[in-house]
C-alpha cells in the first residue's frame, strides 16, 4: 500500500524502498525537480531555457515538467532543440513524438542534423568506418547542442540526465582516469561562465531512471520506449549493467555515488578552473585543447 495515503502503489522507490500511489508519486517527483532547480539555481526569470529533446522518456518528461513550471512565469521562455544524428528506424520515430508534443503544447521546436551540420549522418559513419560510435556521437551532439543553443539565444540548456546517467559518467571517468572530465559534471555543468558556452542544467539529477520512466508512463508521454541500436556494446552500457546489478544487491549505491561526488565536486571545479576555456583554432567553438574533439573526429572521417 502507498505509504502516505494507503491506496494502490505504482512504484517502490529505488533508493528508500517506500511504495507510492500515482498521485503521491507525481507530487514526490515534481517536488524533487523543483527542489533541484531551487537549490542549484538552475535558471532565473528572464532566461530562455532550451530543452535538449530526443523524444525519449527522459527528455519528454523534462519538457513536460519544465513546461508546467515555466508556463506561469511569463518572462521565462522554453524552447525545444532536437539533434538528429541520422539513425534510421530510431530517431525518425522519436522525432515525430517530440514534434507532435511541441505542436500540441505550443513550444518552439528546432531540429539540427549531423548530416547538414557536419556532413555525415551517424549511420553513414558506422557503415563507412565500422566502429562503435557512442563516444563520437556524444561529442558531436554536445558540440552541436551548444552551437545551436547559442544561435537560438538560449541562456540555459536543460538535459534529461538522471541519477543513473550521472553515476555512470562518474564511474566511467574514474575507470578511464578522466577526472578533469568529472569537473564538468554536476547538476549545473561548466567550470566557469563563458560567452560561447551555454551552461547546462539537469533538473532530474536526483531522480533515478526508473522514477523518470514511471513519470513518463503515468503522463502518457510515449507508448513505447526505443533504445538506440548502437548503445549495446558501448562502455556506458556495460557500466550501467554493472551498476544496476550492484544497486539491486546494495540499494542506493547510485545515490551514494552522486552524494559523495557532490562533496568533492567543488574541489574538482576549483582545481580545474585554471584550465581556461579556449577557442578551437579550426571552428572557434569553445574547447579545452587547441583543436576541439569535434574537429578532430571530422578530420578523421575525411
Amino acid at each position: 500500500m502507498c505509504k502516505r495515503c494507503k491506496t494502490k502503489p505504482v512504484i517502490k522507490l529505488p533508493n528508500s524502498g517506500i511504495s507510492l500511489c500515482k498521485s503521491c508519486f507525481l507530487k514526490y517527483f515534481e517536488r524533487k525537480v523543483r527542489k533541484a532547480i531551487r537549490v542549484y539555481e538552475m535558471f532565473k526569470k528572464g532566461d530562455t531555457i532550451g530543452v535538449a529533446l530526443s523524444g525519449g522518456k527522459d527528455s519528454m518528461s523534462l519538457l513536460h515538467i519544465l513546461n508546467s513550471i515555466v508556463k506561469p512565469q511569463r518572462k521565462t521562455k522554453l524552447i525545444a532543440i532536437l539533434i538528429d544524428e541520422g539513425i534510421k528506424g530510431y530517431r525518425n520515430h522519436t522525432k515525430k513524438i517530440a514534434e507532435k508534443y511541441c505542436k500540441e503544447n505550443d513550444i518552439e521546436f528546432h531540429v539540427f542534423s549531423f548530416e547538414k551540420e557536419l556532413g555525415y549522418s551517424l549511420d553513414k559513419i558506422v557503415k563507412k568506418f565500422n566502429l562503435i560510435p557512442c563516444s563520437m556521437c556524444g561529442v558531436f551532439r554536445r558540440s552541436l547542442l551548444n552551437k545551436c543553443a547559442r544561435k537560438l539565444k538560449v541562456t540555459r540548456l536543460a538535459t534529461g540526465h538522471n541519477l543513473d546517467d550521472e553515476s555512470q559518467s562518474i564511474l566511467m571517468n574514474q575507470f578511464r582516469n578522466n577526472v578533469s572530465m568529472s569537473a564538468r559534471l554536476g547538476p549545473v555543468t561548466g567550470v566557469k561562465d563563458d560567452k560561447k558556452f551555454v551552461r547546462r542544467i539537469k533538473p532530474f539529477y536526483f531522480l533515478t531512471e526508473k522514477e523518470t520512466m514511471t513519470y513518463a508512463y503515468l503522463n502518457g508521454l510515449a507508448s513505447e520506449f526505443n533504445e538506440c541500436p548502437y548503445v549495446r556494446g558501448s562502455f556506458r552500457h556495460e557500466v550501467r549493467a554493472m551498476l544496476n546489478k550492484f544497486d539491486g544487491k546494495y540499494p542506493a549505491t547510485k545515490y551514494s555515488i552522486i552524494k559523495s561526488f557532490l562533496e568533492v565536486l567543488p574541489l574538482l571545479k576549483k582545481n580545474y578552473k585554471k584550465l581556461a576555456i579556449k577557442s578551437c583554432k579550426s571552428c572557434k567553438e569553445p574547447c579545452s585543447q587547441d583543436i576541439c574533439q569535434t574537429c578532430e573526429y571530422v578530420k578523421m572521417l575525411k
Partner: protein
Amino acid sequence: MKVKVYVDKGEISKNLDVKSIKEIISKLDLNEEEFIIVKNGELVSSDVEIKDKDELKFLSVTSAG
C-alpha cells in the same frame, strides 16, 4: 497460479506458474531496478498481489537518447 508474462515487447510465457511478482523477477533473473511493471494495463509496484490469468508486462526503463 498461472500468469502471462511479457518482457518489453516479447512474450516470455503464457503459463508461468508463480505466486508473486517477486517470484517472476527471480525466475526470469530480472533486475527490478531496470523495469516498471504493468499488471492488466495498470502500473503497479513489485509487492502487489497477483492472481490466476493475470497479464504482467515488464517494461525496460533503460534508454539512450
